[in-house]
């Protein structure tokens, strides 16, 4: 009797839960990994905006920096036939899901609001699949930044390095001054972030040929050997205790004067700002020497999954439109440290580094030197990206010399294709 009773209660609870899910028409369930203080605050801007339009926001945060855990959760949800309505996604994940036919078509909103005219071409490679809009880009992070402590730079002569030789000179000087010249965390993606910038510094064509087109001659050629030589040179400026260190701890080393500079995407700026440092006064932001004018990016986007309920479809469109709203793009990106994903947003609210980032992005977009970042999954699919990680991190940790590393890179990419 009692078991039977319990069963009935459970069953009715399930029915209740299910009907609750259905009754909230005009709601969006959003899967994302923006859980840290600043990110959550930035996301609240979007939530409030949608609430004012009568769209109910169901939060489904899955914490974990790069969204790995979130993507695993997503896979489980989709396999179970219960996809969330909107999902924060990066690069090739969007294309992969679009190829599965799982994403909704946003062409209506996009043409109504003229997204095509304001979103950079390189971003459209991910936001659009087969000519149809499937995702709304929130931001553009660019990854070829160097964050230099102003004091350490002044001690090392004060001149901002603009090419490889000047960079080496500054790093040498910092070493002489008794600080760790390069703050770095030994995690595969961080090694790859530097690798990206070094490859880009060998020229736009080389970056495109090796990282995007996966041309074997570029991947295994002399220029790639030189890239690995430079990586080894940079490794010599990193302290011995670097392996496994998180990127924000590396930023902290620059902030408190232990280290001279960090090569990291623009999310590092948040750490400097949180420590009450002022761009230009306490720290300097430059593009990786030799890459001024080019930008490697990654971009957070909200991909919309196919839903049948018309009310939910309407809510999806409202959300997509809210994400692309210039006011939101500005408010969100000021907090997040990235730059807006549309080029027509005024830069008034941004700090010096943010203004530079927006200007660089617009320039790179105009001159065709805006590329997806390999390290952050915007140049090649996940399998190839990780195969490259293996080689880059093995070389950075001293397992291969430059020649072997270049040869291994060709082999690893061929195996992962």
């Amino acid at each position, binding site marked *: 009797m009692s078991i039977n009773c319990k069963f009935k209660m459970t069953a009715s609870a399930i029915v209740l839960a299910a009907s609750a899910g259905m009754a909230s028409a005009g709601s969006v369930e959003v899967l994302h990994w923006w859980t840290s203080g600043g990110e959550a605050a930035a996301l609240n801007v979007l939530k409030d905006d949608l609430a004012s339009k009568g769209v109910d926001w169901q939060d489904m945060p899955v914490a974990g920096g790069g969204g*790995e855990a979130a993507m695993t959760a997503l896979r489980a949800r989709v396999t179970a036939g219960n996809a969330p309505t909107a999902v924060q996604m990066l690069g090739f994940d969007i294309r992969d899901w679009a190829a599965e036919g799982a994403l909704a078509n946003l062409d209506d909103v996009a043409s109504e609001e003229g997204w095509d005219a304001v979103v950079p071409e390189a971003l459209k490679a991910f936001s659009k699949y087969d000519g149809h809009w499937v995702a709304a880009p929130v931001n553009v992070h660019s990854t070829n930044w160097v964050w230099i402590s102003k004091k350490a730079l002044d001690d090392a002569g004060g001149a901002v390095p603009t090419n490889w030789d000047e960079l080496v000179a500054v790093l040498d000087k910092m070493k002489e001054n008794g600080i760790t010249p390069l703050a770095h965390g030994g995690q595969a993606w961080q090694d790859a972030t530097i690798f990206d910038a070094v490859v880009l510094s060998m020229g736009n064509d080389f970056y495109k040929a090796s990282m995007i087109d996966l041309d074997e001659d570029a991947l295994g050629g002399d220029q790639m050997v030189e890239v690995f030589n430079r990586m080894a040179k940079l490794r010599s400026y990193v302290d011995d205790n670097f*392996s496994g260190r998180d990127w924000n701890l590396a930023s902290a080393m620059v902030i408190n004067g232990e280290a001279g500079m960090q090569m990291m995407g623009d999310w590092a700026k948040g750490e400097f700002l949180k420590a009450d440092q002022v761009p230009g006064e306490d720290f300097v932001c430059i593009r990786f020497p030799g890459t001024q004018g080019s930008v490697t990016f990654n971009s957070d986007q909200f991909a919309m999954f196919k839903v049948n309920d018309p009310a939910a479809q309407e809510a999806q469109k409202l959300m997509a439109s809210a994400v692309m709203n210039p006011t939101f793009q500005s408010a969100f990106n000021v907090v997040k440290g990235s730059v807006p994903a549309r080029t027509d947003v005024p830069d008034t609210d941004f700090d010096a580094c943010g203004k530079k980032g927006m200007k660089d992005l617009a320039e790179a977009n105009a001159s065709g030197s805006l590329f997806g970042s390999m390290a952050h999954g915007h140049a090649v699919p*996940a399998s190839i990206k990780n195969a490259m990680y293996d080689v880059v991190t093995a070389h950075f940790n*001293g397992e291969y010399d430059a020649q072997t590393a270049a040869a*291994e890179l060709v082999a690893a990419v061929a195996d992962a294709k």
Partner: protein
Amino acid sequence: MRESFQNWLPRLVLAPSFLLILVFVYGFIAYTGYLSMTNSKMLPSYDWVGLANYEKLFRLRHWNTAMKNLAIFGALYIIVSSLLGLLLAILLDQKIRAEGVIRPIYLYPMALSFIVTGTAWKWFLDPGIGLENVMHQWGWESFSFTWIKDRNMAIYTVVIAAVWQSSGFVMAMFLAGLRGVDNEIIKAAQIDGATGFRIYRKIIIPMMRPVFLSAFVVLAHLAIKAYDLVVALTGGGPGRATELPATFMYSYTFTRNQMGVGAASAIIMLMMIFSIIVPYIYSELKSGENR
């Protein structure tokens, strides 16, 4: 009527769990086996590719590193844990005072999860904040212990942490075995004039054979499925120097979108475990029949 009900009752009670295990353990093993022969990438797909994933798997350097690490880790972990456990058990078995206090002290690490063990040892072994730093502060400036940052030595730090975790448990197993040894035999040996050392070497330790076997089976399967310890301790690094098959399987299946290769590696791990468990079960069954 009543009799047949009594016959059926055990089966009826066991049926649900049997069914659940059938589906969720063996069903999914079969499913994984099937996936390993398909070209599954991000989501499961059903395009048959035969053994191509296995061929690819054994061509991957990454997998070879993982297997080599498993060989080093598994061998050292099992041997050192067993010997250390045996030694601790023998020392504890000397009718010492306060054994009841000391025993749980050695046993407690087993109560921690590998994540806790891994994190604690990560901090302890980190040259910047752990042992090396403390030694420097105490004035031993030349002290250096940077294994965890050294790609050739890092796998041994995994062994250290795992041995610390498990040797207390092995000790408890041996202690139970030692307590089971008939006192008469030891007395007889003493009357024959055997020394304490000889008694252990020639009589008691050989009698521990079944305990060695149990310890081996427990430790071996822990070694093969070791995942959390590596993730917490080194994150597979420096570089990929401490990847084990389990971390390989997770990364290929879930983050590298190569589910087919990941499933193939899972099947290889399953086969390794089978090769240990099946002879053990077989010998258990045989000794059961003899009884």
